[in-house]
């Protein structure tokens, strides 16, 4: 039980000392020098006591990344000044959870927001027996419910621990869905990832609880490069929840994570994200650059991967959780809500690659833009030549609030099999004056009305979220649109 107590203590310590997301926890970070070069990669690997093969893999990634310096993706509908990759720290490990600085340093506005949100970090254990693997900056500090999971045979730990304890599994699957050469940010992540979660659900096991990880970006100028690997063996099931928050800062911070999912025969993975990284202020100062590669492989027949995301934070979101539907009869799902307000930019969507026969995919995307924000849905549906009888249905709806924002829909549909069927529908609209009048006549404020109408607009996605997340997400929807009307 000591692991559980440790986590509880750690989490409670955070709460008692007033950590409310917007707080810079004062941890004596064991930090690598600024900048990125081969030595830093070696430093990270050595610090974590990694085996030779992993160091070699990191170095291959680093060398490729170095050659690709000019190939940072430019196709997304987002704009930002060039990132100086040499002006950041790539490793910072907390030695201990230590005294935080005073509350005075925190923007009261932000604190009030989190107060209203009341994301129940310490309550999570009580709620429905959620296991928390809190990623503190880059290194996992605690894991709970280990015993119960172990009893079921589920392996849930930090990826560093997995490298140490289950090297064969990690070696076999790491990079097998998102190869180190996949894209600029994935390559960077492969070279410098510091921690993240690892899950292995053995054959026939239904994971007894929702697995949950809270990521937070903490140290100033530290990019967060987590790497998550989830393997669901034949006939197993797991639901994984990821919540993200970050303290506010004036400068932009880079978050380039990689998530790999593997589902074998008849296995199912449900991956849910509620992302409210710091979005920057009203003028677009500060905020997270969230450049994330998430992909799942439905390797086995009748396997299923379902992505649900509620993206309300980050200054820029660049994210396309995807499914490779290799196994016959496999199923991919993508349910997304992306809310952008003020100067936020989001370019997000999915790729559904139908390889096997009778594969099915569903895409439901709800984009909401307010303020001066720009929100883009970008999605690819590809029916390969062998994907007989494959089916896709896509529905993309955009809602605009205010006249200075933008909403864009860019679907790519590629069909190489005549028995495959693809349907795509998209709409863009605004909240009607009639709807606002109706709600306000019933006593709701303009903001309550917007929150209500937007929650209704997002309903098909919200109902895909696990209970604990759904409530939080609904509140987030309202909060992230504050100030967008009136």
């Amino acid at each position, binding site marked *: 039980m000591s692991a559980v107590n440790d986590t509880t203590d750690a989490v409670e310590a955070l709460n008692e000392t007033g950590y409310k997301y917007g707080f810079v926890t004062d941890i004596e970070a064991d930090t690598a020098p600024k900048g990125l070069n081969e030595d830093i990669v070696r430093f990270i690997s050595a610090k974590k006591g990694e085996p030779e093969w992993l160091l070699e893999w990191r170095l291959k990634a680093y060398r490729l990344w170095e050659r690709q310096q000019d190939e940072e993706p430019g196709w997304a509908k987002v704009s930002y000044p060039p990132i100086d990759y040499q002006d950041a720290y790539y490793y910072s490990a907390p030695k201990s959870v230590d005294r935080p600085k005073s509350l005075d340093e925190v923007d009261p506005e932000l604190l009030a927001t989190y107060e209203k949100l009341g994301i129940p970090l310490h309550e999570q254990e009580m709620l429905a027996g959620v296991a928390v693997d809190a990623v503190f900056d880059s290194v996992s500090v605690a894991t709970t419910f280990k015993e119960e999971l172990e009893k079921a045979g589920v392996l849930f730990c930090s990826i560093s621990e997995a490298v140490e304890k289950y090297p064969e599994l990690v070696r076999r699957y790491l990079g097998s869905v998102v190869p180190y050469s996949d894209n600029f940010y994935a390559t960077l992540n492969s070279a410098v990832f510091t921690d993240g979660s690892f899950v292995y659900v053995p054959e026939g096991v239904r994971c007894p609880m929702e697995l949950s990880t809270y990521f937070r970006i903490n140290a100033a100028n530290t990019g967060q490069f987590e790497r998550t690997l989830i393997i669901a063996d034949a006939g197993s099931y797991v639901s994984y929840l990821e919540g993200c928050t970050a303290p506010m800062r004036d400068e932009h911070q880079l978050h380039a994570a990689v998530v790999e999912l593997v589902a074998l025969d008849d296995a199912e993975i449900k991956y849910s994200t509620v992302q409210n990284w710091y979005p920057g202020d009203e003028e677009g100062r500060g905020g997270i650059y969230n450049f994330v590669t998430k992909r799942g492989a439905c390797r086995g027949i009748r396997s299923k991967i379902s992505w649900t995301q509620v993206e309300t934070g980050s200054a820029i979101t660049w994210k396309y959780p995807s499914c490779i539907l290799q196994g016959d009869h496999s199923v991919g799902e993508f349910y997304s809500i992306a809310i952008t307000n003020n100067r936020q930019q989001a370019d997000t969507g999915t790729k559904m690659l139908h390889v096997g026969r009778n594969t099915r995919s569903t895409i439901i995307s709800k984009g909401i833009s307010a303020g001066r924000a720009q929100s883009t849905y970008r999605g690819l549906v590809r029916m390969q030549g062998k994907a007989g009888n494959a089916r896709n249905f896509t529905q993309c709806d955009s809602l605009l609030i205010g006249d200075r924002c933008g909403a*864009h829909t860019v*679907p790519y549909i590629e069909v190489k099999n*005549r028995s495959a069927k693809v349907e795509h529908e998209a709409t863009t*609209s605004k909240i009607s004056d009639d709807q606002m009048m109706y709600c306000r006549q019933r006593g709701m404020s303009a903001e309550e009305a917007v929150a209500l109408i937007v929650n209704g607009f997002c309903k098909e996605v919200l109902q895909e979220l696990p209970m604990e997340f759904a409530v939080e997400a609904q509140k987030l929807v309202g909060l992230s649109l504050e100030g967008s009307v009136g």
Partner: protein
Amino acid sequence: MRVQDMSRRITAEFPFVERFDEVAAGLPGAGLHWLDALRRDSLDAFNRVALPSTRVEAWKYTNLKDFAKTPFDIAVSGEGDPSVDLDGAGAGGPDAEHRLVFLNGRFDAGRSRAGSVREGLTVLSLGEALRRQAQVVRPHIERLSPLEDEALLALNTAFMMDGCVVVVDDGATVDRPIELIFASDTRSPTSAHPRNLVVAGAGSRVALTETHVGIGPSEYWSNPVTEVVVAAGASVVHRKVQRESPRAYHLANTRVTLAERGTYRAFLMSVGAGLSRCEIEARLEGEGADCRLDGIYLARDRQHTDITTRIVHAEPGGSSRQLFKGVLDGRSHGVFQGQISVSPDAQRPDGHQLNKTLLLSNEAEIDTKPDLEIYADDVKSSHGAAAGQLDELESFYLRSRGLDAEEARQVLIRAFIAEVVEAVEDEPFRNHLNASIDGWLSHEAAARETGT
């Protein structure tokens, strides 16, 4: 910005481009100082940007690599068999007002037929227009030219040979269609760069029917650019049938601007050419402008057919409708890219788009990218896209009523595209379309029977 990135470019070494000075001297308007300079600038622009590779977003699905290797020259005046009869080639039907025939990109006076002289209507070849009314043509030609990143448009400007200039005065109504026929008949790989201009004055009405055909044995490249200016309250109907020979590259650009309450109705049938791309951009620049683009694409064998549209709602209250349907057989490759873009001040626009494709074979491929780019909040806009095969149940139903498999198949294919054809108001043109579709279907059926 990324001009330096050569992976985004295909360098072509077309002989006629190398011989620009020599060729330009023989092109219409040679000696007009502004035009000579414009041609020169456009050539420089083409050399600078080069042809787009599939790394360029707008060309993601249409690969010009093989095209760029073809040693195209420019068509020589007078080439082509004078005995070839082009009378029946046009889609305009017997009651066309004027018929202008362009052979290998040059005006063919012998095959053309001038209609009656009409109040308020001027129809000239570009060469003639540059001689007689250069001041009318100049602002339009100059306006289209400085566009960035438009290699084919730049090349057209540098080498525009001839084309049709139609000017309709304010308030004039031209009740019978003007017919344009672009024919190619060459013995070696040649290129033609027609440039057309249609200016419809305030409150005027005009219809055009444009047909592209090819006869000769050689590969050729048709690179037409058509500019349509729809003034306030004017109405333009623009029909186009692309049935070039299978050895053709047809890379066409249509640019339309609409002033307030202007309407533009376009119908496109793309059935010919080995590789074709018909690009239409319509800018709704006045309040209450209305644009409708419909089309059909049919392809088989190794044909590649690309329809790329972009509708820009730049002013409030405009409406646009697009409906494109395609049928793909053999190893053909269809591309539909349709963008609806709404500018920040263009409130209350109403933009809708639908694209559906029927795949008849397992080797055919459709890539479709319906794209909404919205910067205004009071918007009603939607798009849809679907791809699939003939419905087996429907086919079964028809066969149970006595149709054989092939008949059932043809009935269902026709039913699939009927929605688009039936929206065509002009009867002669609709008949022409139906005949073309019949021809395509029977060829398709025959090919199926012989197993090719």
